[in-house]
């Protein structure tokens, strides 16, 4: 049986299915005798103690890996476990209803969870999930079921789960987890990002894969095309073994490029940097030969926790990346969150059209305290002078001027507080809104660099919601309108003598590399695993022929024809297209 989901992280693996955390806990409902009551209560207490022990262990491990703040959520979980209202209700009902404790506990828990889900406050509504989470752990212990978690896996296999919580993904042991597949999720979900950063093949959004797979089934997971095969026949397995060999060879051939410079055949140098989300990814960036971090996403700090990150936490993380990457530069993008779950504790309203809503720099300029905390930390962490600041979603000049003003105030405050800081930190604007792309000449005097965020730029320029699969065919980076925007941004940057980089999806797609070089782009920031491939492409072409290619493309009026020319050009110059297929099988995350 073959199922298709969203390719989240490239690679192919064959292995046994390790089914995680399927919620098939069947709750018994049998009656109990009066004299068995003390025994039931004792079972309940045992389960609570056991669960408590498990949770404390998990808390300690998260604390070690991610810091105290991320582990704080467990304090609330532990209190739910010890909650008087819940325990008293269970014991009261046990005595009254005389049913087994599993049933009584489950019913009481549902009552509380239901009360929480009906609360108007979005943040508290989500706490219903916390209660369910704690409840499931207790039930598992009552039923004597072994809780299969990522950390308890001790055999090699492919993890099949409904979803992987960020708190769980930290436990992934690469020597056991060959790959993973989940029911829910998108390319931009945390699970997908983690998979790519760990370089583990993964498929998300398979909808009901946990219902279709049984523990121990043989699974083929093709993270390139987003296809999963359950109990395939010998022929199919043989076919995929060949595919794995091909993929491994491609990866092996590419590794040669890790230490070579990125330079065209006519000696024009390119700067290939990496996009990262977690500080630990800087290791992978260096291994793949990145000469800097062109996009350090900072949304992660605001996730999976009940409060805001402190200046010190920001500082510690930025400092790690700054130290590891030195002397290379690191571009820290300030928080790019919208009215979604990450900041639910700030009472951000749900929006009908979040991509055009209250997010990114718009949010930061209104919630200046949060913005200033982040800026202070970046400035403090810039001891080597290799950090740069990037503002997301700049729409007009006023926003840029305002953001810079806040930065100046923060610098003064830090100096007044007795900190020694590097005051001439580089500042850049993400160019991802069409109106901003049209005024890059006006924006340029106020920044040191531009970073072109193609995912949003394309979505806004073409009026295509990139999350909506019905109109996905319209999402076309080769649309002449999109190309004109990009060309203008690059030219304006050159005219103003400032730097320009591209950190969107398009920058890591081999077919567009020659065209972008032809337009004059020299800096690219991509997921680490794609650096070698882009290097290979750039080392096989000359800038002169890229410029010719761009002139030729400018005369063509449809994206489709342009795509054809670009593919043909690449096929001619770089016959082995390497990861090319994986690229088009699995589009990566948003920028």
């Amino acid at each position, binding site marked *: 049986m073959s199922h298709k989901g969203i390719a989240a992280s490239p690679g192919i693996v064959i292995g046994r299915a390790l089914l995680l955390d399927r919620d098939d806990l069947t709750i018994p409902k049998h009656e109990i005798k009066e004299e068995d009551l003390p025994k039931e209560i004792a079972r309940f207490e045992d389960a609570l103690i056991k669960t408590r022990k498990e949770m404390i262990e998990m808390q300690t491990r998260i604390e070690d890996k991610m810091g105290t703040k991320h582990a*704080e*959520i467990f*304090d*609330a979980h532990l*209190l*739910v476990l010890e*909650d*008087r*209202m*819940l325990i008293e209700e269970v014991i009261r009902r046990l005595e009254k209803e005389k049913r087994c404790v599993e049933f009584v506990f489950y019913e009481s828990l549902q009552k*509380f969870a239901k*009360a*929480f889900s009906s*609360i*108007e*406050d979005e*943040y*508290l509504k989500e*706490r219903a999930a*916390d*209660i369910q989470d704690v409840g499931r752990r207790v039930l598992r212990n009552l039923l004597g079921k072994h809780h299969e978690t990522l950390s308890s896996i001790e055999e090699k296999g492919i993890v099949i789960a409904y979803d992987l919580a960020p708190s769980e993904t930290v436990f992934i042991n690469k020597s056991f987890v060959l790959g993973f597949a989940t029911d829910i999720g998108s390319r931009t979900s945390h699970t997908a990002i983690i998979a790519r950063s760990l370089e583990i093949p993964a498929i998300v959004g398979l909808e009901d894969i946990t219902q279709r797979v049984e523990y121990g089934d043989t699974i083929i997971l093709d993270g390139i095309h987003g296809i999963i095969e359950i109990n395939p026949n010998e022929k199919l397995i043989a076919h995929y073994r060949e595919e794995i060999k091909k993929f491994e060879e491609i990866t092996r051939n590419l590794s040669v490029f890790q230490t070579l410079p990125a330079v065209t055949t006519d000696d024009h140098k390119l700067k290939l940097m990496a996009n990262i989300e977690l500080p630990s990814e800087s290791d992978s960036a260096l291994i793949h030969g990145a000469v800097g971090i062109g996009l350090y996403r900072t949304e992660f700090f605001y996730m999976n926790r*009940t*409060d805001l990150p402190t200046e010190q936490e920001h500082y510690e993380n930025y400092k790690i990346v700054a130290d590891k990457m030195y002397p290379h530069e690191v571009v820290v993008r300030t928080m790019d969150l919208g009215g979604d779950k990450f900041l639910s*504790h*700030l*009472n951000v309203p749900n929006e009908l059209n979040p991509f055009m809503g209250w997010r990114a720099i718009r949010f930061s300029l209104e919630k200046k305290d949060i913005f200033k905390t982040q800026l202070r930390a970046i400035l403090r962490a810039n001891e080597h002078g290799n950090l740069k600041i990037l503002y997301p979603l700049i729409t007009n000049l006023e926003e840029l001027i305002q953001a810079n003003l806040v930065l100046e105030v923060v610098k003064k405050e830090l100096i007044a507080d007795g900190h020694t800081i590097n005051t001439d930190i580089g500042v850049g604007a993400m160019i991802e809104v069409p109106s901003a792309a049209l005024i890059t000449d006006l924006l340029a005097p106020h920044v040191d660099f531009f970073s072109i965020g193609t995912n949003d730029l394309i979505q806004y320029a073409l009026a295509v919601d990139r999350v909506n699969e019905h109109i996905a065919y319209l999402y076309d980076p080769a649309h002449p309108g999109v190309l004109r925007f990009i060309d203008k941004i690059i030219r304006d940057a050159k005219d103003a003598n400032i730097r320009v980089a591209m950190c969107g999806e398009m920058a890591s797609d081999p077919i567009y590399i020659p065209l972008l070089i032809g337009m004059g782009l020299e800096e690219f920031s991509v997921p680490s695993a794609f650096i070698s491939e882009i290097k290979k492409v750039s080392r096989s072409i000359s800038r002169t022929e890229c410029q010719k290619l761009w002139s030729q493309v400018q005369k063509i009026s449809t994206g489709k024809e342009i795509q054809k020319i670009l593919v043909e050009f690449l096929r001619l110059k770089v016959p082995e297209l390497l990861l090319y297929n994986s690229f088009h099988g699995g589009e990566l995350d948003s920028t």
Partner: protein
Amino acid sequence: MAAQKIVRKTLTIKNRLGLHARPAALLVQLTNTFASEITVENNGQKVNGKSIMGLMMLAAAHNTKLIFEACGKDSENAIKKIKELFDLKFHED
């Protein structure tokens, strides 16, 4: 024998984010150190002040007034310490 004294006090939530998980956790950790029975009331809804679920269910946002009632031998001290935590905005903001 110490008197089972009832102490009542109305407290206003001053921290920006309201009584979410973290402040509720701090409050429960505090109330559980007292022998007195403690209840909290918001808009006619009364819950056990030693229960985190009860407290969170009040969905008390910034500026909400909560009526605390402690009954027991250490009721006065309990209300005093709760008031301090409220005044400190649960160490937030």
